[in-house]
Each structure stands twice: as structure tokens, then as C-alpha cells.
């Protein structure tokens, strides 16, 4: 029995150690951010008093008000639009058969392993002057919103299809016998139950869109008022880090904060969504 208890103690020890390691880098910039430049911080930098001046300075000097607004507009639009679109595609692939569905679905799934790095070059040039309609979208929110909706629909389709397939067929059949249209079935019968699935999908899409960097770097670098928070952080760090690491640390904490807060409340959804593939199937 003592051996068993020792082993159990060892398990908790290992878990605790690796959990702390997972948190430490985040804590370390938080500690750094709670100092100011003149503290000449070194080492673990455990803060002895609460000094928020770096946060204030970072927020104004890094123009994060604008960055947060841009990030929020982009992430919210992408989340809402791709959720609506994915509910549609997921509903069709999950409950209907139609000409070509077995060809189109795998093509959409390809989007999940899709190296979208390979799309930024034409996006940059095409958004300067959109073919056929000659719009200039570079350095606008659209340049970030449109491609990210495209990317999110791939995951969303997979996710919502899995949900709609798991709903009992009898439910749909009963509604049809009652004369419901295909939209009626979706709107009145299936969607009310889909809320948790839609929430999980939205939380993930919002997070990925909020965190996105390469697209922002390529497509909105030229307009300060459209820069997202992560892009602003990257520029701010490049300009300020050598002079004052505490300000950059504060900025980094600010950029991570909204997602961390959402994570605290909707943790289950994050984990469930990210483990999806392994657990489904």
C-alpha cells in the first residue's frame, strides 16, 4: 500500500511540475510587466509591489486602443459569419445527400491541414485591386475578414456536421411529417439543441482570429488604424524592447488578456473543441 501511495504521490508531483512549467512563461511576463523600467529587472522578478504604470504606458504608446478595436471587429465578424455559414454547410452534409456531396466534403476538409501561409502572396496582390470588380481591399478590415471566414468554414463545417449527424433521425423525420420545410427543421428543431456546439465552435474561431499574425502582417501593415492587437504588439516590441522590456511585457499581457478571461469561463469548450478530432470518429 505504501508503494501505491508513493506512486500516487509521484503522479501528482509530475502533474504539478508540468502544470507549473506550462504556466510559468505567462507568469514571468506578468511579473516583468508589474515593474517599471527603472527597476532594472533581472531574474525571476517577483513583484514586491503592484505597479501598473507599464500597462498604462504600453496602452497609450502602443496605441492598443485602436489595435483592440480592430481585432475585435475582425474576430467578431469572422466568428458570426463563419458560424452562420458553417451551420448551413454542416446541416447539409450532416443530414442530406445531394449530387456531389462526397466530392465536396473532402475538399472542404482539406482546409483543416491547409497551409494558409501559401495563400498570402496572391491575397496581398489581389486585394490591391480585386479582379473583375476592381476594389482596393488591402489595409482594410475586409482583407483580414474574408480569408479568415474561408479558413474557419473548413473547421466549422466539420464540427457542425458531426453535431447534426449525432442528432436523432427520428426528430427530423417527425418534423418533416408535420410538414416542416428544410429550413423549419433547422431553425425550430435542430438549432435550439445546437447551442453548446455552436458556442464551442465560436469560442475557437474567435480565439484563432484574435491571435492571427501573418495575415495581419501582410495585409494591414500599411494602415496604422487597421492593425490588429498582435500586429501592434509585434511592432511595439520591435521598437521598444531594447529600451524598456517592462512595457513590452505589459503590452503582451494586455493582448493575451481577453482570451485568457474567456478561457477561465468557457474552459470546457476550448478543451472539447481542440480535442475534437481524437474524441470524435
Amino acid at each position: 500500500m505504501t508503494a501505491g501511495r508513493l506512486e500516487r504521490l509521484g503522479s501528482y508531483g509530475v502533474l504539478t511540475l508540468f502544470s507549473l512549467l506550462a504556466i510559468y512563461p505567462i507568469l514571468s511576463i506578468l511579473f516583468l510587466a508589474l515593474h517599471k523600467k527603472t527597476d532594472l529587472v533581472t531574474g525571476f522578478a517577483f513583484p514586491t509591489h503592484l505597479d501598473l504604470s507599464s500597462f498604462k504606458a504600453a496602452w497609450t504608446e502602443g496605441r492598443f486602443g485602436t489595435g483592440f478595436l480592430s481585432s475585435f471587429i475582425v474576430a467578431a465578424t469572422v466568428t458570426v459569419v463563419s458560424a452562420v455559414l458553417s451551420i448551413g454547410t454542416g446541416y447539409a452534409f450532416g443530414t442530406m445527400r445531394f449530387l456531389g456531396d462526397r466530392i465536396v466534403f473532402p475538399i472542404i476538409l482539406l482546409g483543416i491541414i491547409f497551409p494558409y501561409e501559401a495563400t498570402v502572396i496572391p491575397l496581398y496582390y489581389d486585394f490591391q485591386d480585386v479582379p473583375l470588380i476592381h476594389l482596393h481591399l488591402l489595409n482594410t478590415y475586409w482583407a483580414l475578414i474574408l480569408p479568415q471566414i474561408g479558413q474557419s468554414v473548413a473547421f466549422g463545417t466539420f464540427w457542425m456536421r458531426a453535431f447534426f449527424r449525432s442528432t436523432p433521425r427520428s426528430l427530423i423525420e417527425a418534423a418533416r411529417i408535420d410538414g416542416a420545410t428544410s429550413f423549419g427543421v433547422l431553425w425550430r428543431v435542430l438549432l435550439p439543441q445546437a447551442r453548446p456546439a455552436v458556442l464551442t465552435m465560436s469560442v475557437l474561431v474567435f480565439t484563432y482570429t484574435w491571435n492571427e499574425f501573418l495575415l495581419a502582417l501582410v495585409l494591414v501593415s500599411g494602415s496604422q488604424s487597421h492593425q490588429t492587437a498582435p500586429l501592434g504588439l509585434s511592432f511595439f516590441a520591435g521598437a521598444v524592447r531594447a529600451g524598456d522590456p517592462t512595457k513590452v511585457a505589459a503590452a503582451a499581457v494586455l493582448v493575451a488578456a481577453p482570451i485568457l478571461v474567456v478561457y477561465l469561463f468557457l474552459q470546457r469548450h476550448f478543451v472539447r473543441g481542440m480535442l475534437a478530432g481524437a474524441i470524435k470518429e
Partner: protein
Amino acid sequence: MAERQSAGAGLLRRLRPRRRDEPAPGDPRNIGWLYVLPGLAFYVLFTLAPLVHTVYYSLFSWDGLTAKTYVGLSNYSSAFVDSALRSSFVHSAVLIAFYAVIPVILGLLLTAALTRHPVRGFRFFRTALFLPQLIAGVVIAQAWTWIYDDNGPLNWALREVGLGSLARPWLGDFSWALPAIGTIGTWVTYGLCMVLFVSGVQKIPSTLYDAARVDGAGAVREFLAVTLPGLRGEVLVALVLTTINALRSFDIVYNTAAGGPGGTTLVPSMYMYQNAFLYNKVGYAAAVATILAVTIFVLAAIVLRVGDRSERA
């Protein structure tokens, strides 16, 4: 630094041809197209079409401003002999060891340590282990830049324990910058692997463990005979995802060592970015992007293929 694609986790497995009979998803109703078209349009216009467009660009010599010149496959033949490109893929291979191989092995070892006894309160640890997945790559880069800083926690700790001679500005060091970036990747992924494997173990029938114990199997045997085979699917998923993430890595590299010092952390996506937007070699950058995309698709296919075969065996 979770990437949008990684959310799909093992969705990849769905790309494989199915051998099991799949029940028909529903009634034949061509009205389904009405629901598919809007989403499909966004996907095709803003994801698929740009990829095709990239391949098209790769056949031209173009500075992004003046007229394009068709050059056939010559961007690819230049790529073939480009030592910078080759070393960027070598760096990717090193990153794969750090992003994929080490986290999977670490995840398996930790899982093995946990399966002998049910661990209560795993949810609490899970919250911490999952944390790196949701932090933006740019933020992760800032956090680790501080850890590796000349005055940062790592060097401070080394000096405190009398190993001050090892202290260095890690990200500025020719031989240490790449492993330093790799370590960031390990940090990002090991928790995901662990949570994935622990939840996988819970689906292995406990009768298998009982049987192994009755047969007198020790911890190692039990792991090799029961846990590892039972986790085959999860390990495969983890390997595909983390390998792809290693190949695609851009955010963390760009915001830490940015390819330097002396090109020792140059990775393919970084090299593509530099060619397209700094050196004005757009056609060549498109060829690099195409090669990267093909590499990713081929590697994913190979891992899935191998996994498929071991499933049949």
C-alpha cells in the same frame, strides 16, 4: 499559438477512405446545395483559389510591380540548388523533433506515469496544461524572449547555481537560437499531447488492464502491451498536427530570432515572406510557398498512410 487548423485535431482521419460502412447521412435532397453554397463560396474564393494562384505565380519571374515574365519551372530549379532554402528545411526538421517528437514522447511518458492509478482532479491540471494552446504566437514570443534574455530568468538561474559560464543571450547565439525556438514549440505542444493521451487512455477498456495485471505484467509491459496500442490513434493525430505546425511555424520565429542570427533560424515560411515582401522576388517566393504546401500535404499523407497500415496489421 494554436493554429486554426489544429482545432480540427484528428479530423485528418476523416480524409482517409473509409473501410467501414458508413450509414447514409440522410435523404437525397438537392436542396442541400443551397445550404452548402454560401460557405463553399468563401472557402473556394479566399482559400482554395489563392493557393492555385500561388502555384500560377510560381511560374513567373516577377518583382511585384513591373510586368511578369513567364519562366516555366525555372523558379523550381533555382529552388532546388538554393542552399538557403535547403537549410530552411533542415531547420524545419530540427523543429519537428522539438514540436512533434519530443512532446509526443513526453506526453506518453507522463501518461504512463498516470495510468497506474486514477488521478483525481485532472481537470484542474488540464486547465494549466492547455493554456499554451490559446496564447497568441506573438505573445508567446515575447514571454520567451524575456526568459532567454541576457538578464532573464534562465540566465539568472544558471548564474545562481554556479553555471554562469553557460549563460548567454540564447536567441542571439549561432548554435543555440534554433534549439531555443524549438524548446518554445515543445512548451506549446506537450500539454496538448498529454491531455489528448490521458483522455485516450480513459477509453481503453479497464478489462485489458485487469488482464495484464493478472498475467503479472509490470508497469513497462503494461504500457507496451495495453496503453501504447490503445493510444495509436491519438499518437497519430498528435504527430500529424504537431509536424504540420512545425513546418508552418512563422509567428514565433518571426517574433523571436526572425531568421537570425546568420540565418540559423530561417524556416521556409519566413524565407517565403522575405522573398515576397522584402526582396521583391514574388515568383520565387510563390515557388517556395508551393514547395512548402506540397511538403505538408505529402507528409500528412505519409503519416496517415503508415498509421493506416499499422491499423490493418
